[in-house]
């Protein structure tokens, strides 16, 4: 029997994941020894683990910039620029997720060490998702990403909304996972392999297995479309985002979405280039619907978390547009660069916006209405300014990362128009819905500055740090996007 040797397992390539995984296991046991009143120790220890992974990632950036890509675990995972870039996003998001919870959990009386451990586990799931080179790994990573999130969204268990969010997310998530597994099964039936590169070889445009594989690809799209909250698989998003504790919402709206997109791109671009025009058309249609529904329904929302949930659906549409643009192989590296750049810009902006929502939220879970933002412009001028920046960035106004992200996405889509004229229509929808989105984003700014109100907010040091960092990041991406976009473009799959 041929046993894998240590070189083919290549543990160094997945070092950041290993650090977090090992640390999460240690922390789970260690947390048992920490007394109930000292649970913030677990938080700081979780931060130490994440920083360790960040250091490992930092050294890997240089390494992979030179070498391109490396396989690990006998080719089950591929570590390349794409996965490194996204892993940086995931680790940063997790660090923010810990910082946001630091004061939130005790204030709401739901402080438990498990929050931080589960956060680490779901981060591992996302990281593995970004490097999956085999459909089985995609599935395992997706479950590792999802299951801790189901628990986390029910973390404020004594609130009915949180319980409802967890149950809804779990049931619909399990349903979507079954679609994914069925898609994997059909793809395997059609091609005889679950390895992405193997599938690409087996699927040629005149192959007999084409119908079976195409159906399998469609079912894979359903499973992953659920994770990224694309219409028509978005139904869970508003209720879950609203019901889950706000730090969890912040973390999941960025992390789970980016994880889903990572797997989506890997699977579509690596495994199904032969039927690119099929999935390109599918994704373009889904992108158009997602942008329309997300932006239009967001207008009528009065709750900030629900509004941001619909906004996250809308942004999934913009990113999907760039994914659809990746169907042309000569265009793929620019389109993928646009996707990961948009994901980074969206991560910074959205985390910042949720930080403000956490600061305004009261201890009993109320205070999440947009009207509660009234008067913040006077009482908390800096925070209001940052929130205004995030809202402008989500709309896509100048000097913000959101604008640059949208420009890249539309540019990528326009480049692909010769191959798929449908994209032109979707780009027009995208531009028009961006204008529509200004209505509900600017409403928040209007409420903050023009309406009289108490403007109460609790802003501890951890939140201040996150706020400053995300606002700074959003500005940097908006003013000098060049270096980051070049990195993002180099992040193309190899």
């Amino acid at each position, binding site marked *: 029997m041929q046993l894998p040797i240590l070189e083919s397992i290549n543990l160094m390539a997945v070092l950041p994941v290993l650090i977090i995984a090992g640390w999460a296991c240690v922390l789970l*046991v260690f947390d*048992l020894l920490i007394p109930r009143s000292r649970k913030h120790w677990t938080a700081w220890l979780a931060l130490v683990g994440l920083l360790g992974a960040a250091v490992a990632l930092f050294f890997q950036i240089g390494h992979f910039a030179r070498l391109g890509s490396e396989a690990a675990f006998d080719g089950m995972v591929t570590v390349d620029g794409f996965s490194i870039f996204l892993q940086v996003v995931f680790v940063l998001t997790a660090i923010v997720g810990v910082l946001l919870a630091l004061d939130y959990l005790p204030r709401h009386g739901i402080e438990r060490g498990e929050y931080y451990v589960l956060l680490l586990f779901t981060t591992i799931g996302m990281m593995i998702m970004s490097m999956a080179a085999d459909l089985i790994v995609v599935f395992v990573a997706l479950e590792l990403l999802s299951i801790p999130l189901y628990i986390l969204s029910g973390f404020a268990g004594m609130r009915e909304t949180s319980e409802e969010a967890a149950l809804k997310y779990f049931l619909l998530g399990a349903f979507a996972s079954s679609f994914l597994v069925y898609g994997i099964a059909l793809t395997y039936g059609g091609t005889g392999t679950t390895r992405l590169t193997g599938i690409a070889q087996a699927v040629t445009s005149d192959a007999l297995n084409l119908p079976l594989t195409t159906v399998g690809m469609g079912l894979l799209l359903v499973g992953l479309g659920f994770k990224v909250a694309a219409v028509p698989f978005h139904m869970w998003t508003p209720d879950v985002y609203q019901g889950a504790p706000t730090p969890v919402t912040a973390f999941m709206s960025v992390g789970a979405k980016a994880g889903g997109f990572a797997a989506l791109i890997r699977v579509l671009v690596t495994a199904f280039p032969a039927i690119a025009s099929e999935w390109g058309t599918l994704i373009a249609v889904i992108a158009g619907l997602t942008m329309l529904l997300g932006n239009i329904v967001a207008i009528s929302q009065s709750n900030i978390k629900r509004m941001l949930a619909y906004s996250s659906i809308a942004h999934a549409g913009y990113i999907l547009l760039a994914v659809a643009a990746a169907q042309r192989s000569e265009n793929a590296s620019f389109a993928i660069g646009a996707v990961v750049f948009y994901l980074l810009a969206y991560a910074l902006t959205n985390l910042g916006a949720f930080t403000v929502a956490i600061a305004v939220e009261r201890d009993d879970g109320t205070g999440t209405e947009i009207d509660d933002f009234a008067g913040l412009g006077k009482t908390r001028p800096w925070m209001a300014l940052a929130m205004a920046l995030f809202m402008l960035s989500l709309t896509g106004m100048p000097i913000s990362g959101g604008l640059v992200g949208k420009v890249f996405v539309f540019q990528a889509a326009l480049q692909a128009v010769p191959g798929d004229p449908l994209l032109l229509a979707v780009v027009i929808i995208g531009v028009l819905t961006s204008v529509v989105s200004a209505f509900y984003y600017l409403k928040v700014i209007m409420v903050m500055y023009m309406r009289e109100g108490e403007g109460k907010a609790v802003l501890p040091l951890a939140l201040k740090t996150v706020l400053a960092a995300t606002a700074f990041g959003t500005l940097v991406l908006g003013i000098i996007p060049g270096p980051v976009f070049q990195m993002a473009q180099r992040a193309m799959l190899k």
Partner: protein
Amino acid sequence: MFEQYYPIAVLVLLATVLSIIVVFLSRIMGPRRPTPKKSAPYESGMSPIGPAVRRLPIKFYLVAVLFILFDIEVIFLLPYATLVRELGVYGLIATGIFVFILTIGLVYEWKKGALDWE
């Protein structure tokens, strides 16, 4: 490409037609003299009284979850046991890591009091 599946299609068709014929034949030709005893779901079993879904203590749910955890361990260990010599040190390390992670789960549930019945 589908020629090789014809026998299966014939088999499916035969099975469907045959089972329909058999069910209807017994209905048409057999004598039917129902009594209340005969129509009961289990003629010689317990008489079905009360709702089928009983309430049971929620503790069982926890036990069931913990059972799955170690059930999975056995599922993985059995194939390993049959190949233990071929897999050698590599298999030992891999299985060791797996069991170690499960042990962490055991320590956790023990400390959390999930194993206390009262």
